[in-house]
């Protein structure tokens, strides 16, 4: 059973539809009760860091979330801003992150037109996993995923980097720390690569 945490941010229904098509049980959690029993949790996210954090705090479910992820060790997948919120802080805002991983969120350096690396980083780019297991099983040495962001997660401990992508510089397009997984791209908007990844998350 996959539980998608709905705190009013991100593409809940697109994620749920993919799991329904895969015949994998999925539940959308909007209350403490619905969230508390989560076996595997997805933390979606779009928008600005502070906006998403404010909505999460306002949901009143921060405590349950921390308990699930930090104490109970349930697998959690953060998507886009959902991944960024797992870090301690972000250059985009002033609010504190969830602090589940020892990382900061940084802005890409100024766009360099000569390299055609405009900001935001928008579109389909290559994702190279360090291991083709777990989240990246059956995706190949290079997957193509959809990105839409100007900030990236910079983990303190490099071993946390699960996959890298190049955009003017190499950055962590996926991180993993124990039961905590994050992807900067949108698997729910990345056709069969994304569908495979969401399936993998259900089978971890």
């Amino acid at each position, binding site marked *: 059973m996959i539980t998608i945490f709905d705190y009013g941010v991100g593409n809940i229904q697109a994620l749920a539809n993919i799991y329904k098509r895969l015949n994998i049980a999925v539940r959308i959690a909007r209350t403490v009760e619905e969230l508390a029993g989560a076996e595997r949790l997805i933390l979606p996210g779009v928008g600005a860091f502070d906006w998403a954090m404010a909505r999460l705090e306002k949901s009143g479910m921060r405590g349950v979330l921390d308990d699930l992820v930090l104490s109970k060790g349930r697998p959690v997948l953060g998507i886009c801003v959902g991944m960024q919120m797992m870090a301690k802080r972000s250059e985009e805002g002033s609010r504190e992150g969830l602090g589940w991983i020892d990382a900061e969120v940084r802005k890409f350096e*100024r766009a360099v037109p000569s390299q055609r690396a405009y900001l935001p980083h928008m579109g389909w780019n290559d994702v190279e996993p360090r291991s083709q297991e777990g989240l990246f099983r059956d995706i190949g040495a290079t997957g193509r995923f959809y990105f839409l962001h100007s900030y990236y997660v910079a983990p303190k401990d490099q071993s946390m980097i699960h996959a890298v992508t190049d955009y003017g510089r190499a950055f962590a397009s996926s991180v993993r720390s124990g039961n905590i997984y994050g992807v900067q791209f949108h698997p729910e908007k990345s056709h069969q690569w994304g569908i495979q990844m969401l399936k993998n998350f259900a089978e971890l």
Partner: protein
Amino acid sequence: MLRPRITPCLLVHNGGLVKTVNFSNPKYVGDPINAVKIFNEKEVDEIIVVDIDASVHESQPDYVLIRNLAAECRMPLCYGGGVKTVDQIEEIISLGVEKVAISSAAIGNPDLIAEAATVVGSQSIVVVMDVKKVKSRESYELFIYNGRKGTGLNPVEFAKTAEQLGAGELVINSIDCDGLMKGYDLELAKQVRDATNLPITVLGGAGSLKDIAALIEAFGVVGAAAGSLFVFKGSFRAVLINYPSRSEKDALVPHVLQAIV
């Protein structure tokens, strides 16, 4: 390697999908949700849906339609039409849309761009510029209300303003080329490209994959959007939703691009 985006742009009018010529004569081409389902199967890079009634009728965006589209799209969705306030933008993003397009409202009140970017992030704010060539002056002019009203503003100058205020993407839509399928206005695209560091998407005029290839050749990583090309087939403009396959798309990416980031 970041790839160019090849993006169908769908217009909604009276609840159905239509395609226009020079922003006029809307022709019915099908049902929006059904079209999205077909584009899912074709693995399109992203999709733009514009409700061309909402801004003209001064009505609220159709949130039910937007919610249904967002749930159906397995690719990123950009919604436009009738968006005037930050509250509306917040609402649309919370329905699961990745990007919100603003045009008339942003041109009338550029601060909307900054206010919206603060709330939902620059990456989700797309500024659409509908542009007509002013033949007598060999320059371009920005239009609002679906091309009905000139503003006297120069799109290149407005592109700079939009970037400074925090827009995340510019869509350059040529009213002159709309629906003609005779190629993009590359000169217009070049003027805007040279003026900003934002990702740009060019719309209006694509009639074949060759036109898209020419755009990518000229600008590298760019958004190539099209309406008619992806909904019509043949010289009689029979309605048939189509889109290049993955190998056809890869063939459009020049080798020079593959060597850089």
